[in-house]
């Protein structure tokens, strides 16, 4: 097990009250495995990623739970111990490559500082490694590109640089927060392939945060679905996509346009994502749920309905049920 | 008691039902500091208006001055039988009275020049925005050129040519300040000009002056008022500075700045009060205006909030 998150809660203390952005999330990723963390914007998937990195900023804070990374609880270690892990054993790739690189620092500075933050190496050695890393992610003539500034790169190229930085120390875990969302579709595919290649090459575990089911379907081994700060369903990718238990997961799947059902009206999830400050009691999805019943006013617990396939629902779809 | 719980409370109205002015007032009084500033400002203005009635003596009527009372410490009772609360200057002039009269001139110059600059600057700014093209380019090029030089340099240029005098100082301040109003008015008007109601007014073939003054100007007023408040404070400060340098008002009509300047020569010998108290009066006035202006900016123009 590379990472095992148990009952993680991250809250934001605002003047209007406390917001539970992440509310009792448990998930785990084995070595070399890819977990797709799926949900709408505001569902808490990004905050979960930042919580694992311990980069949640005030007024947010980790309110409880354990983040076991190779046996160490990240929620308990000191800030300095955590810093030594960041960018070294656990790396992160951000959503918008246009914003992640510092505009006034050259690429070589931003790469060398990452190497030297964790290892005592000479500048020359660090530069050589930075160059190799750029070459590895498919950036042509890396020697020259090292001396360039971020704005001289396209969005796709910048994301490649960010990926190269993330892989500099061959980390055990990478958290990728929608790294392809801001890119053109053709570039998306390239970046996806690049990440897939590198993770399998180094045996890196990956948490891929996305709102795009089709990306996750193509990439991940396991899938975890988040809704309003809670994990509502978790299991093997094929299993979850073929036999969704939770009505929300099924709604998500049905919302994806499908070639085979052309002409048919898309199914939508009714209503809007509720505000985290004003969630319905019990199951937070019940007001939008087609299967709502009286029991849903009580908070559902996570239960393993099928083998290695859990859902947090009182009335899940049964796998034998006919969906069409 | 029970009835009062059930009866609706008329004094608590919802925001939407308030008149714009009431909403403005309730937003303004949120800051206690700003209310204090407004109170102090009101007091200062009243003192300035009623200075001849409030002051123990007329500091510029030489018959009322007693040279034997020169350079008395604050609080000493002089030949007139009343105490000089803030001391006297070398001619036996009661500093409290001198400050009251000095406030009049400082406020007159500051407010007067600000109003004039407001009228000229807003007119030119609106003209630039409404007509655009070459008129806009000519006016704004001049505004940019002038704003690239510091106010004190422009004032120095004008006063070194015209010499000192109340009207000359006011003229210098107007020339320094109009550009700020012009820039603000133009920026606000450009936003408003694109709105549909202006187009509608143009379609009705209303005269240009009517469109500008009845439709454009009222909508540009809030930012202009904010700038105006701040400019009154900086006009008063600049006038005081110029007078301190001997380039401002003449000795016969001393503003606070000139009082400070006059007292400056006695300070090194330890007679601090001749210079210090007029300075405090100046300071209180400027800070009060700025507090009010700061809150006005927050209330009238949420976009400018920092």
């Amino acid at each position, binding site marked *: 097990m590379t990472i095992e998150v148990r009952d993680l809660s991250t809250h934001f203390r605002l003047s209007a009250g406390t917001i539970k952005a992440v509310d009792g999330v448990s998930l785990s990723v084995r070595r070399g495995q890819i977990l797709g963390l799926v949900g709408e914007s505001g569902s808490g998937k990004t905050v979960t990623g930042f919580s694992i990195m311990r980069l949640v900023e005030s007024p947010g804070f980790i309110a409880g739970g354990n983040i076991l990374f190779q046996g160490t609880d990240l929620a308990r270690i000191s800030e300095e111990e955590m810093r030594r892990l960041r960018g070294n054993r656990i790396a992160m790739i951000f959503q918008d490559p246009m914003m992640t690189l510092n505009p006034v620092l050259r690429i070589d500075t931003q790469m060398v500082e990452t190497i030297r933050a964790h290892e005592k190496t000479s500048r020359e050695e660090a530069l050589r490694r930075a160059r190799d890393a750029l070459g590895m992610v498919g950036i042509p003539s890396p020697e020259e590109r090292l001396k360039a500034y971020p704005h001289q790169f396209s969005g796709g190229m910048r994301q490649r640089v960010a990926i190269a930085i993330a892989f500099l120390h061959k980390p055990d875990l990478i958290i990728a927060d929608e790294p392809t969302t801001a890119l053109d579709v053709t570039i998306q595919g390239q970046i996806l392939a690049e990440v897939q290649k590198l993770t399998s090459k180094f045996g890196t575990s990956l948490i891929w945060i996305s709102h795009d089911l089709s990306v996750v379907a193509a990439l991940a081994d396991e899938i975890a679905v988040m809704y309003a700060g809670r994990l509502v369903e978790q299991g093997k990718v094929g299993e979850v996509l073929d036999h969704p238990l939770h009505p929300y997961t099924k709604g998500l799947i049905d919302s994806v346009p499908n070639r085979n059902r052309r002409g048919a009206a898309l199914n939508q999830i009714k209503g809007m994502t509720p505000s985290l400050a004003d969630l319905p009691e019990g199951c937070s999805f019940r007001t939008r749920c087609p299967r709502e019943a009286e029991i849903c006013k009580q908070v559902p617990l996570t239960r393993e309905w099928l083998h290695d396939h859990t859902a947090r629902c009182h009335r899940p779809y049964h796998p034998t049920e006919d969906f069409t | 008691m029970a009835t009062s719980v059930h009866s609706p409370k008329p004094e608590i109205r919802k925001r939407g039902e308030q008149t714009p002015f009431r909403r403005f007032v309730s937003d303004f009084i949120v800051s206690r500091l700003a209310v204090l500033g407004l109170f102090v400002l009101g007091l200062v203005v009243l003192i300035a208006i009623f200075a001849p009635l409030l002051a123990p003596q007329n500091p510029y009527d030489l018959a009322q001055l007693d040279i034997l009372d020169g350079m008395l410490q604050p609080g000493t009772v002089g030949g007139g039988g009343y105490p000089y609360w803030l001391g006297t200057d070398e001619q036996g002039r009661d500093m409290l009275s001198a400050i009251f009269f000095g406030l009049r001139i400082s406020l007159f110059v500051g407010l007067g020049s600000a109003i004039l600059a407001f009228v000229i600057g807003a007119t030119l700014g609106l003209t630039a925005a409404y007509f655009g093209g070459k008129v806009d380019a000519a006016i704004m090029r001049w505004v940019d050129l002038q704003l690239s030089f510091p106010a004190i340099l422009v004032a*120095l240029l004008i006063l070194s040519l015209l010499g000192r005098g109340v009207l000359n100082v006011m003229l210098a301040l107007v020339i320094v300040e109009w550009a700020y109003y012009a820039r603000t008015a133009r920026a606000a008007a450009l936003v408003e000009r694109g709105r549909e109601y202006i187009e509608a007014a143009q379609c009705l073939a209303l005269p240009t002056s009517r469109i500008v003054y009845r439709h454009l100007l009222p909508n540009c007023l809030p930012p202009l008022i904010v700038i105006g408040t701040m400019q009154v404070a900086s006009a008063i400060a600049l006038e005081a500075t110029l007078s301190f340098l001997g380039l401002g008002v003449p000795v016969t009509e001393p503003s606070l700045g000139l009082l400070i300047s006059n007292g400056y020569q006695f300070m090194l010998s330890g007679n601090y009060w001749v210079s210090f108290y007029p*300075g405090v009066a100046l300071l209180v006035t400027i800070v009060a205006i700025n507090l009010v202006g700061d809150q006005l900016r927050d209330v009238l123009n949420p976009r400018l909030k920092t």
Partner: protein
Amino acid sequence: MVSYLLRRLPQAALTMLVMSVVVFVGVFAIGNPVDILISPQATATERDNAIRALGLDLPIWQQYWSFLVNLFQGDVGRSFVFNVSALHLIMERLPATLELALASTLLGLVIGMPFGLYAGLAPNSRVSTSIMAGSILGFSLPSFWVGIVMIMLFSVHLGWLPSGGRGDTVYWLGARWSFLTTDGLAHMAMPVLNLALFQISMVIRLTRAGVREVILSDYVKFARAKGLTETRIILVHVLKNILIPVITVVGLNLGTVIAFAVVTETIFSWPGMGKLIIDSINVLDRPVIVAYLMLMVLMFVVINLLVDLAYMVLDPRVRLESR
């Protein structure tokens, strides 16, 4: 870079030309040029001779042309009071003013940046609130009043610092400087701080606003995710981004500081060109006034140019666009 300069230089020249017209019209057309250019003590014959010699009987555009030609040759006439070239007189006083202005700009940065950084990093702490309140005071207090209070406190009451003058100076690089002697430094302390108050406030506000913005940016989060130390993030990633706007504004403000030195020099009897111009205005030594005004205009034009260039060097994005 060169093409950029070539594009900017005509603009700068045009500004100079416009301002020369303003000063010419001001000095030669509004006032009586005879009074302005000829000493009031001159006799009637001397006046007539002077009028012809100065070409005041010529049409106005010819007068402007000769004014312009003389200006180009650095000739704006001789001071009535000192009977030397007005420009020479000004240049002699320039080092003292520059010393004051540069020292206060430096002080503004040295004090303002750390305070602004602190206020930006811990915006809700009580210290930060005090810093920001102080900076509002720094903006709204008239600097001459602060100067007077400083003298009252440090010279008259405590007797720690001299109230005026430059103190001992040392000859270096063709001019005399106060900052190289301890006595000179003691004389500099109050004027420099007085002149720096506005800049300290300005730098605090700029730095704070910059920190608040940059600290929330993705690239700072990414820098944290890379495992950099907080020190490096603040000193390199945050500070380097803030430096650009701060340097620009502080640089642009240098001219204003030199202009405001007029006030500080008058209070602290600092023998720079600000004190000279006030003295000259008081005795109507108009060639000196013209020399000062034209020099200030030139300075503003040059400063604007230099700041644009510095901006290009510091910000790689601007540099590339202009290539």
